């Protein structure tokens, strides 16, 4: 939504004539003064006057918008705006449209994304006031990862309403992620939306969504993290079936790009979470050694080093220590020499393993 450009600054308009701006009082010799523009200083003078009076009015609401556009990271103006929206009983859907515009302008502002969360939390709460359990309207209450509703307990029409809201939020976030697929704020908010509305059908689509993003960029670690989030949180915890499916998924991606760290970390992470040993992927890793491109992947050798080290400890096997040592040397000298100090240190750690005589 484009803002209306108006040649006359707000403070020259008659409706502001009665306000006495409060200047910033920085004292005679301030630390790191900032070369404020006149526009900023004047605007903030009026903003201070509004805050001091805690005025609840349309003009105060308009002013918060002007201040936010000058300084989105301001840590009290959003709160003031949230109070005003409530007091003046404003239409929250209109607020969402403005936020959409602001997110495009300032995609990395913590405050904007959090404001979205507050507003959507209020909308959610207003849908069925009696069934909601959490409130996002007062900042002092805990933000809960718990759901606002038990989705299954809602009536069919209520379910539709919630699904529409979730769908539009997920689409809004997906739009922001098109511009920056690794936007931390967007992903954090996405996790909140998914969880806040409980165990609804939107969780099913999320796995496909991460797959779609990974098709476009297999190195998008944020999408891998989201996949882990969905698999471990979305369907009541990680089942053995999930583990097997995800292990296959990660392996197939590794085969395509063996030097991509993300699926490696994901693969070993899923194994650990599912109480599987890393040694279960030994054959897979050894198999990659005969693939020309994979042979140079530091992650193949690093994972083999881990596997042989575990074997050496578990079986007190001198042969496994030897194999681990070879991998450490390969890493330090050939495929990952930037970390040679680390791999050499790992090599010295191998000497401490107690092996059978």
């Amino acid at each position: 939504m484009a803002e209306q450009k108006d040649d006359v600054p707000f403070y020259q308009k008659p409706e502001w004539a009665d306000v006495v701006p409060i200047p910033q009082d920085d004292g005679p010799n301030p630390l790191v003064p900032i070369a404020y523009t006149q526009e900023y200083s004047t605007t903030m003078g009026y903003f201070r006057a509004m805050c001091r009076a805690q005025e609840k009015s349309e003009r105060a609401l308009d002013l918060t918008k002007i201040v936010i556009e000058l300084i989105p990271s301001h840590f009290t103006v959003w709160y003031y705006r949230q109070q005003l929206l409530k007091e003046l009983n404003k239409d929250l859907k209109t607020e969402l449209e403005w936020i959409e515009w602001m997110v495009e302008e300032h995609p990395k502002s913590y405050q904007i994304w959090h404001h979205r969360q507050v507003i959507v939390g209020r909308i959610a709460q207003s849908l069925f006031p009696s069934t909601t359990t959490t409130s996002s309207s007062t900042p002092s209450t805990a933000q809960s990862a718990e759901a606002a509703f038990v989705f299954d307990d809602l009536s069919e029409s209520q379910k539709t309403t919630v699904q529409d809201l979730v769908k539009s939020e997920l689409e809004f976030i997906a739009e922001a992620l098109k511009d920056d697929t690794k936007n931390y704020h967007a992903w954090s908010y996405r996790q909140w939306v998914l969880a806040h509305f409980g165990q609804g059908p939107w969780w099913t689509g999320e796995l496909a969504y991460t797959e779609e993003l990974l098709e476009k960029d297999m190195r998008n670690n944020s999408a891998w993290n989201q996949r882990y989030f969905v698999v471990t949180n979305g369907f009541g915890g990680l089942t053995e079936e999930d583990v097997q499916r995800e292990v296959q998924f990660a392996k197939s991606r590794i085969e395509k790009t063996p030097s991509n760290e993300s699926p490696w970390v994901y693969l070993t992470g899923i194994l650990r979470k599912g109480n599987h040993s890393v040694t279960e992927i030994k054959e897979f890793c050894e198999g990659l050694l005969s693939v020309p491109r994979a042979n140079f992947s530091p992650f193949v050798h690093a994972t083999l080093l881990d596997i042989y080290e575990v074997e050496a400890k578990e079986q007190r096997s001198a042969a496994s220590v030897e194999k681990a040592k070879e991998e450490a040397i390969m890493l330090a000298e050939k495929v990952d020499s930037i970390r040679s100090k680390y791999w050499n240190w790992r090599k010295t750690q191998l000497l401490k393993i107690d092996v059978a005589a």
Partner: protein
Amino acid sequence: MATTQETQPTTQPSGPTFQREKHIQYFKRNLQMLPEPYTSQDTFRMTLGLFAIGGLELLGVLEEAISEANRKAWIEWIYSQQRIPSKDSPSEDDDALYGFGGPFSGLAFQEPTDGQQNLGCECNSHTSPYDTAHLTMTYTALLSLIMLGDDLSRVAKEPILKSLRKLQQPNGCFIPCITDYEPDMRFVYCAAAVSYILNDWSGVDRPALLNFIRESQTYEHGFAQSPRHEAHGGTTYCAIASLGLMGGDAFLDQRTMVRQEGETDSEFEERRARAGFVDLEGTRRWCLQRQTTGFQGRIDKPTDTCYSFWIGGAITAIGSFDLVNFECNRGFLMETQHKAFGGFGKWVNTYPDILHSYMGIASLALMGEPGIRPLEPLLNISKRMQERLYNETVFWKK
């Protein structure tokens, strides 16, 4: 662990020159007046001030670059940003948030008069919530006060501790202030650093805080801003440094821990409960994997000057900084320093800014670059100033 933290090369590193003089001029210029683009960070001015003062301290020229008159004046300026309870209404249940903030909210500058010390601005339930203190500003104000030579005797410790209790969330995390609800690891660190500087942890529910940190270690082994998010260099520093400030028990192995002298059974058990939950090998590996030349903050993100400190500081805190490839890290930083203006940019060929300038120098300090004072990574302050905290401030000196 085969590693030592105090490794300091004694010879001048080869390769491009560290533009020390230019950086001194850069920080001096910024200290006088920050250019207009910093307006968008106006509410964080206290933190920008820390970077300018801290940069000059690390470069070894704090006292010569900042006159005694300025040091005294800026101590007064910082205290004038302190929010303290008003004398007439010291009610137990007041809503105001104490600590340090900024002048942007419009509170009147407090001048010391007639032998009366400047203690800050009085606030209470009836003053505006928009005059709030902010946890990050409290942390950075305290560090700046120490560097400017103050003994912290005017710091309103009890009100700050009381405010900390209000800011901690049921899941153990902290928010920075009541008007800005951002629960994440950055404010966990600020709460830990403030508690450490005040030498009093009664404002923090430590088991809850530890639990939050534990929950935030991801399958990647780095730490996220909060549970289930992606591992990130800045928050990994915040998590690891918080654990270090709490005594580093989390890094110990529960199986091999021994009771300390004078420690009771229950104290020992409590300490054991805090131990061993961080996967140290995993954290070490994740941190070291972030080195490309300098460091990236997440897997497959661009290499960025500030992560040379955030990740470098985290690795130092777990005692493995000597496993970093110094030559590559230094080489990257020599590329991001601005040859003409001084200071460091985020990336190669970007304009310098004060945060990245401070972080670039802090990372070089960890590597023992000649002409930079040694750095204490947990508080992110020079070792000289850490000594000053211990020996010359009211909360620590015997």
